[in-house]
């Protein structure tokens, strides 16, 4: 953000949310480490854990109630994830990352993710989940 690399910042923010949800999953399920391909032989388990899908990760992290439509984080969750899910897997944005996001959009997404009191991270912090 400080280098005004707006599209790169947006791409990194996607990873931030993915890492948060995977860390929350470990905490919710009392896992020492996140399941890896080598240690996960069951195909159905792979589809749940080995994913970039925010909606899937929301379920296994145990935070659906917070960011669901009736939850206090619904607005921030919707505002943030709508930009990442509109073109399929959010990681696809790396293919057009150089031109798609401007300063206004990057700062808006940053606010949905970090701005207190209703940003995604502040809500998780307030609930001692993060």
């Amino acid at each position, binding site marked *: 953000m400080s280098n005004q690399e707006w599209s790169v910042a947006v791409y990194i923010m996607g990873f931030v949310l993915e890492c948060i949800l995977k860390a929350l999953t470990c905490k919710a399920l009392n896992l020492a480490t996140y399941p890896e391909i080598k240690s996960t032989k069951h195909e159905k388990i792979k589809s749940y854990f080995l994913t970039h899908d925010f*909606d899937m990760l*929301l379920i296994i992290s145990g935070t659906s109630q917070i960011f669901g*439509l009736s939850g206090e984080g619904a607005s921030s969750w919707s505002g943030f994830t*709508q930009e990442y899910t509109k*073109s399929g897997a959010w990681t696809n944005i790396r293919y057009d990352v150089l031109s798609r996001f401007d300063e206004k959009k990057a700062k808006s997404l940053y606010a949905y993710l970090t701005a207190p009191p209703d940003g995604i991270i502040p809500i998780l912090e307030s609930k001692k989940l993060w």
Partner: protein
Amino acid sequence: MVEKFKTILNSIETERGNVAIFALLRMDEFVDKWTVVISAPWATDENRHEVFEMIRKKIVDTLTSAEASEIARIAIFPIDEHLIQELLQFKSDTVVENKKINGNDIHSAYIIKSETPALV
């Protein structure tokens, strides 16, 4: 649930004015969650929070709690957003199954209203 969303759309348009796109999209087959997509001339970045809360309240008041739990997000896009332009290619009351829209494999979609801005 689609009929309930038609009621919600009517309520939104009565209160705020015409909507260009109102659709339900299910992005993948693994998670049974829907994205409510709306685009309207009166829904802007500046009033996004107020518009979101208005739509959220109508959805929560209309759907059962089980139905509401199937909604992953309310996505409010400007009319010039590429996804909206692609959805405007469909007519109102169109059901889409397993089709690529905006580079995204849409598992299911209900285009409840699609009306180009010039006609709005």
